[in-house]
């Protein structure tokens, strides 16, 4: 792998950039692997990367139905934060956020992690109390977060509507200075390049058609390009988790729904942080390219089409026009949808199953991008050692039978 640096960029420029190597190979599947990851999104690629790097499992494959990073990894609003309420959530999201801090350097691929600061507005007395509770939980966990006053909100985000007579006036905000955004495609591409360099086979355009079991154990996966023997399978298929897991006879506590997002045309910088307005169900940030990146709530019905319902976005835009009045004369450039995997308690699943050798990483719902590094890290550890990583343990499947739900709804009611 040739190393990326300002020097390599200059050197290659001299030769009209004709000597760059492939970022990843396009290998044919082998007959057998030590482990197969199903799904080459961010979570799957990160899992493969850490399996190879941390656990020296390099004879593994990541099998992808389409193009790598083409699912929710390439369709989200790239928000990165860890200021969750429940302890298990704080642990996984903060591990993830801290890994993001050095990820560009570790992967030698600039994924543009931008800790520009993220604020959750408090627009009712109740929301203010709830977020104060989250703040205390977070600071005791060691997170760098604080409550900020309406005045400070306005200083950090001058375009916000601070009219005290607004429908939902701003009473303050909960602020994570090192929350922010990243370049979503680059996360997938960086992990893919890193995993590939360690020998991981990333096989694109190859759908898994079956998962073969013998005596309660996984023995291999059927694919469009033939049967692949393996004793360990990690399913990381987001919105398609239910479909893939049913190939192994496992029914999941998952519903797949459409979550939409949109961007404006590019404008010069107007907002240099991420603002989430949970009471009115909308949030907004601005990409490096200048587009306002806007997201809101998910549709209510199951949907595998990546085409959402316009009214969902309409409510989000309406809320944001009221929150940031200057955007009224700006324009929607492009809207799109992704299929998100929602669990009963809106928290993820990182777990083994009743089928020996079968592991599943899913349920990230509307907030998976921020979790990619941590999710991959603990899931790789779980697969490699055949037991849950301590941070993964609370997210096991059996929590649904025990009633041990991890409910974040009190902290945030909006998709992000």
């Amino acid at each position, binding site marked *: 792998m040739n190393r990326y*640096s300002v020097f390599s*960029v200059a050197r*290659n*420029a001299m030769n*009209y*950039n004709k000597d*760059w*190597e*492939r*970022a990843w190979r396009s290998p044919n599947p082998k007959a057998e692997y030590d482990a197969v990851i199903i799904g080459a999104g961010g979570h799957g690629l990160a899992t493969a990367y850490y399996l190879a790097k941390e656990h020296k499992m390099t004879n593994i494959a990541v099998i992808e139905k389409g193009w790598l990073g*083409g699912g929710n990894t390439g369709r989200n609003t790239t928000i990165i934060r860890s200021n969750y309420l429940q302890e298990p959530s704080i642990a996984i999201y903060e591990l993830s956020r801290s890994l993001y*801090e*050095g990820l*560009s350097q570790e992967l*030698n691929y*600039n994924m543009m*992690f*931008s800790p520009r600061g993220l604020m959750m507005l408090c627009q*009712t*007395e*109740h929301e*203010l*109390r*709830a977020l104060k*509770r989250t703040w205390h*939980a977070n600071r*005791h*966990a*060691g997170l760098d977060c604080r409550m900020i006053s309406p005045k400070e909100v306005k200083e950090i985000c001058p375009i916000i*509507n601070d009219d005290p007579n607004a*429908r*939902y006036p701003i009473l303050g905000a909960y602020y994570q200075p090192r929350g922010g955004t990243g*370049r979503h495609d680059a996360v997938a*591409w960086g992990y893919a390049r890193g995993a590939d360099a360690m020998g991981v086979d990333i096989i*694109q355009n190859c759908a898994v058609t079956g998962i073969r079991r013998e005596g309660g154990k996984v023995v291999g996966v059927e694919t469009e390009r033939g049967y692949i023997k393996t004793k360990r399978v990690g399913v990381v298929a987001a919105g398609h988790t239910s479909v893939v897991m049913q190939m192994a006879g496992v029914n999941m506590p998952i519903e797949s729904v459409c979550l939409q997002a949109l961007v404006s*045309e*590019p404008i*010069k910088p107007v907002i240099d942080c991420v603002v989430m307005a949970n009471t009115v169900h909308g949030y907004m940030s*601005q990409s*490096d*390219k*200048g587009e306002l990146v806007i997201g809101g709530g998910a549709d209510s019905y199951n949907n595998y089409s990546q*085409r959402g319902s316009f009214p969902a*976005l309409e409510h989000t835009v*309406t809320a944001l*026009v*009221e929150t940031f*009045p200057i*955007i*009224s*004369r*700006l*324009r*929607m450039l*492009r*809207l799109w949808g992704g299929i998100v995997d929602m669990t009963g308690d809106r928290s993820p699943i990182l777990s083994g199953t009743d089928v020996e050798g079968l592991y599943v990483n899913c349920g990230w719902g509307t907030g998976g991008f921020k979790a990619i590094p941590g999710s991959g890290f603990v899931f790789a550890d779980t697969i490699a050692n055949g037991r849950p990583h301590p941070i993964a343990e609370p997210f096991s499947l059996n929590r649904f*039978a*025990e*009633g041990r739900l991890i*409910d974040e709804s009190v902290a945030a009611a909006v998709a992000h």
Partner: protein
Amino acid sequence: MSGKPYRLSDAGRLIDRSKRVSFTFDGKTVSGFAGDTVASAVMASGQRVMGRSFKYHRPRGVVGLGSEEMNALIGVGKAERHEPNLLATKVEIFDGLSAVSQNRWPSLNHDIGAINNVLGRFFSAGFYYKTFMWPQAFWKHVYEPFIRQAAGLGKAPTGRDPDVYEQVHVHCDVLIAGAGAAGLAAAEAAAASGLRVIIADENPRLGGLCDIGGGLIDGASPLEWAKTRAAALAAADNVQVLTRTTVAGHFEDNYVLMFERVGDHDPSITAAGTPRHRLWKVRAGQIIIAAGAIERPIAFANNDRPGVMLASAARGLAARYGTAAGVNGVVFTNNDDAYRTALMLKSMGVGVARIIDSRTNPESALIDQAKAAGLDISFGSSIAGVMTSKGGKQIDGIKMSPYNRGRVTNETKVDCDFVAVSGGWNPAVHLWCHNGGKIKFDHELQTYRPDRSPDGLLIAGAANGTFDVPGALAEGYAAGEQAVALLKGKAGKIAKASATQEAQAKLEPIWFAPATGAYNEGDKHFIDQQNDVVASGLELAQREGYESVEHTKRYTTLGMATDQGKTSNILGLGVVAEATGKTIPEIGTTTFRPPYTTVSFGSIAGAHVRDRFLPVRRTAIHDWHVANGADFEPVGQWRRPYCYPKAGEDRHKAVTREILAVRNKVGLLDASTLGKIEIKGPDAGEFLDRMYTNTFSTLKEGRCRYGLMANEMGFLMDDGVTVRVGPEHFIMHTTSGGADRIAGWLEEWLQTEWPDLKVFVTPVTEQWAQFAVAGPNARKVLEKLSGDIDFSAEAFPFMTMKTGTLAGMSVRAYRISFSGELSYEIGVPANQGRALWDAILEAGAAFGIEVYGTEALHVLRAEKGFIIIGDETDNTVTAIDVGLEGLVSKKKRDFIGKRSMEQSFLKMDGRKQLVGLLTEDPNYVLPDGAHALEDATGKPPQKTLGHVTSTYMSPSIGRSIAMALIFNGRARMGETLSFSLDGKVVKAKVVEPVFYDKEGARQNV
């Protein structure tokens, strides 16, 4: 350059030379004619450069004729009315219009950012993924801020938008997107049936390319036919014609968004209060897409220089606005259509130095006409480079060379000052694809055209790849008739026009014209001009493994500019195909997402702004609260008085006064927001037993009982007092926030799970204004009012209910208490609510009555240890957790949540349990949500023992109090817990969560 004749004397059908219009471009006054666009007027003034590109900041001029434009982006209007990134080719001028160019500093002519161009080769595709990584902190603090400033296009407005927007839902039988020849024909056929037809076009006028597309209809110019059609449609009473209206998006079940620019072209319209934009939400029976086609360029070296434009644009500018692209042009083409440009320009007196045709020896009528007109034509040739001066701002000529896919051999210089280029046309299939329509590659046209559509869209004319007038007309009529047939309408008789057009020679694909020097090492070939995506960048992406078309697009940003790839997508695919030796279908195509062109956020918000953003629910007393200085807080959709500060009082003082009034005298609370639901039927008691954790079937008539409701997970979701008013009749109270939800919840269970239960449920929340009269003097106040209700302790005991008259009004009186004081809740029909409220205040004056708000209410109940759903609970808390196991029936076989409460995690020991907390320092109020710690002296991460749910300074007992959910809390009674707050350790004792009148004597007098 000015002074040269760029405004042709006898051309320009859309401009009115009798009406001069003057506006400013970058502060400089420009004079044009009514009917001009900013582009046509500025170009007529002799200026070519209209903007700077995104990455290299290269000077750019107008390329297109309409919404395919990607370079001439301008900002229009001032201050809070400024609107960035508009297309100069679409903005209609009016007196006083202020337009500015974008993405340049300090000026369009001298742009510092142009340094990027010199460094161009270093800024290869995706270069930023490969660098800017060291040192780690530099990305956020150095590189990114620079990139952000350099990126972006126009500037945002400065303040709140003063203009009005609105939306309208409309249903029609047939919607036609596009009013060119095909669209007009379709509309005529569809309208003849009498069905409701909408035809919309993004332009200010109908007709599409009828004026410059060639061909004849009924022996005359298609424009004449279009005129009569337009008039007929405008006169029909079953047709809605919409101009300046873009059919922007197509969604499920023929739901369509149309974006109408009502007032942008004339400020007097918005000045009158008319909406600036209107968003049409259309539900159409049948949709006919007649959106036309977009001409595509050819990639040659320096093909982005100002003056290189699409052949249709050069032709259109001249024909419509009399604006000449230059004095002497070169036409570069691989098809016949561009010959129309050459011929038309020549006929208008614009010099055409040469037609450069990449085809070897095509033969057709148009080519013969060109020869006959004396135009020089070089076949089998292409452009190898563009020669410029003035820093690339002016074209001096082009280098022509024989066209071959290899290196450029001998070159000939051709002098010219503009280039009109055509690589063929791409059908506008965007709408077709928005909802899953499929497209297929057409080797004849060398582009994608519609294939299958999941929802039976109809498509006609150029949008369908049918570029000739007779074909477009025929498809239009057919689509109109088919739409009527599909709707089972009755076809009407129309006299169809007949069209003719000369046969055309085949198009031969050319994507990439080699440049001077080593292949791809010379000047840049631009594919996506706005994003500065060049051919070599696309090839680099392939080399590096970004082979999936989506990877290529994302890695190079091809097609991701504000034009969304209208001119660049197919060209890019062609270049990649050539570079990889694959066919275009093998490369694939990216998906088309709504909207077709940008839609203002203002129009999406419509009228839902300011006081119409989200409803504020008002009780019958709301305006009294306003008049009496209430300090409001949002509660659900309501706005409730938090407190009523008197002169000189802050919130805290006011709340304290209100609390003490209730404890010592009497207080009045507007509790109208509480949910009220009438429940009646033979099975009503059984039904309530299933909905509540405790039992109601045993409740006696006239008696009240406090009930707890859990969800199926076993967690508390609502609470309130329910009274039995008859053998089969109950009235349930819910929380204010829960009123609608619980009414729906009851209906859902009755309809879906227990349809056998004979119970009717009717929510009546807003029928009643309801007030709490609470405090030692409560009885005296009510007794002072005339009426037939005996409020005495004996006649009206605690937790009972009576109906009767009070102050001349029929009321429902409940003796219940959420404050722990002697307390009655009086319900009266809402329209009399204010009258009763006034009467109570009048009667209460003698007893020191004061109104109190939600905060006093919260403190009063906290002093008594009463929970509030949402404060003491958060979707993870059971009735047992909050110490109310007494309200969880052991006898009932089943109730909502019962089974889940038996799951291991819910019944395990040591769960968080509700306790009271008393701080060591009675004057210290624990902060909201504070967490008790196992070791408050240590450093994070610290193990927490639970959190504070409610915390106040209690005026009644003169010290701070708090309620908290603490792990294994009830076993910790008497223990001291530690908090780490503001760097200090704060200690608090665990106590029973009842702080005032523990035995409950006060409410029982």
